[in-house]
């Protein structure tokens, strides 16, 4: 089955890859290398950059306490929101896959929050819900709990943002739904004949056959969550406050580059982020050999 690719195969493949290659070389590669260069300069955006070698990186690791805090906030966010979002999305997708009426309406209802994206409206609504006298605390008060001001206390605001990201689980759900549709129905019928219960079917059929899609959602959620910017920008004060509780990594990077006129430093931050994300992605790829099953007969990558 595995034969070395011939010249004509190469040609065909590269024809298919052409648009992407073209975009990569014309639009992406230049700016990426540019930012790598800038990360070794002092560049205030408005005057020419000065080469300072690795000083930016040195400063980030030795004397920048905001960097450390922003990493903590970001990691908290990633480790909470990624699993919660995916589990929630998977459960809802299975519930809304088939077998009941009005599926279309239900799916739309569950997807609606994600349609709002990072709009201004969502910031207004979220504040309204989670402020000290908001709806959430009114509900809590009924069961005798006096809730804090979720959107303004530095100890809690990150959880408010996690809630927002879990609430907007729609895109992950849709991808799970599409994945579920790829699972041949006769597999379930066959196992039903064998007398397998729903739970057994879920672990024996659904999970393994869905694993390429779970893998995809996991990778993308990790990448996107590490780069989360809009929720912190909209729910927080846009400057990482209160204290540094909403100082997500990309927000810090953005503030450094555009508000504090230190694009060289921001570029260095960006490349550190790239490394962190790459490490996590690589880990998922390596482990995927053990838990992702492809229909094309090749195990993992």
């Amino acid at each position, binding site marked *: 089955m595995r*034969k070395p*690719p011939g010249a004509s*195969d190469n040609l*065909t*493949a*590269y024809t*298919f*890859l052409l*648009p*992407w290659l073209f975009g*990569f070389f*014309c*639009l992406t590669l*230049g700016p*990426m290398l540019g930012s790598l260069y*800038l990360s070794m300069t002092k560049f205030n955006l408005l005057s020419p950059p000065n080469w300072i070698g690795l000083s930016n990186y040195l400063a980030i690791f030795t004397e920048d306490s905001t960097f450390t805090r922003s990493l903590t906030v970001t990691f908290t966010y990633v480790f909470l929101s990624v699993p919660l979002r995916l589990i929630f999305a998977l459960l809802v997708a299975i519930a*809304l896959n*088939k077998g*009941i009426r009005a599926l*279309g309406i*239900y*799916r739309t*209802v569950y*997807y*609606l*929050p994600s*349609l*709002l994206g990072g*709009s*201004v*409206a969502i910031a*207004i*609504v979220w504040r*309204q*819900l989670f402020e000290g006298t908001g709806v959430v605390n009114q509900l809590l008060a009924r069961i005798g709990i006096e809730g804090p001001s979720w959107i303004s206390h530095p100890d809690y605001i990150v959880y408010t943002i996690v809630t927002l990201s879990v609430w907007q689980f729609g895109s992950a759900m*849709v991808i799970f*739904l599409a*994945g*579920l*549709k*790829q699972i041949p129905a006769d597999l379930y019928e066959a196992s039903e004949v064998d007398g397998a219960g729903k739970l057994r079917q879920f672990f024996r059929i659904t999970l393994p056959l869905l694993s*390429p*899609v779970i893998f*995809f959602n996991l*990778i993308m959620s990790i990448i996107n969550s590490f780069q989360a910017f809009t929720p912190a920008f909209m729910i927080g004060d846009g400057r990482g406050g209160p204290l540094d509780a909403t100082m997500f990594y*990309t927000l810090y*990077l*953005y503030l450094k*580059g*555009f508000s504090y006129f230190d*694009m060289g430093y*921001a570029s260095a931050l*960006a*490349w550190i982020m*790239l490394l962190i*994300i790459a490490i996590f*992605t690589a880990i998922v790829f390596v482990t995927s050999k053990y838990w992702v099953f*492809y*229909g*094309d007969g090749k195990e993992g990558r």
Partner: protein
Amino acid sequence: MTMRNNLSRLARHLIIILIGIGMLYPVLWLVASSFKPNTMIFTNTSLWPAVFTLDNYINGWRGLNDVSFSKFFMNSALISVMSVLGNVITCSLAAFALGRLEFRMKKVWFALMLVTIMLPYHVTLVPQYMIYNEFQWINTYFPLILPKWLAHDSFFILLMVQFIRGIPRELDESARIDGCSQRQIYWRIILPLLVPALITTAIFTFIWSWDDFFSQMIYLSDIRLFTVQLGIRSLFDPSGQSDWGALLAMSTLSLLPITAIFLLFQRYFLEGIATTGLK
């Protein structure tokens, strides 16, 4: 037995509806508030407006400088549709190559494709802006649409790669025996089986282009080119007299097209592997 079935079905509906209401509450609040007079939006927080007004919609729709929201909606729709076409075509091409074909340096390209989305976009913004400026494409839709025609969204490439890898390889093998070229395999076998992923890509691209704000704001200056999101942000100035009512009203309206798109297209998920292709 049927009695128990009915009961469990009812329970399932009930649970879905209850959670759904919780999910939907913030959206309902948004819609309800868009019908309240400006001064009552933050003071009267009940879902049902005590005073019902359409002023927010009328004021908001006027838009900016004689360019009304109808124009913004047209512009957003144009950008979104063009982006959808671009992404569906070029990402599926790239995904076919990376997911199905064997060729030299495949792993390198695959890794690079992923790496490109790992760098936060704020730092590549300025150099990228310079490139588009070089082409004199500032204040046009090219910077917003062109990347989609060059398979710039690795998200969708990887999505399709994952789906393609879920398609049994025996199908291509038998097609090849029947004398199909790779291009024919792509067109006759892979694409039809990829429909759920293509629909997903189409829906997401449409919605995400529709919701995008930052790049639209950076690249568009002419009000006649403004999009819905730019129009909405223009109603909002925290230090000034933000027209909150109009903002919520236009946000509600901006939800309508994308909700409709989702509602219409989600049913294509229902057609799984059994009904598409494989004939």
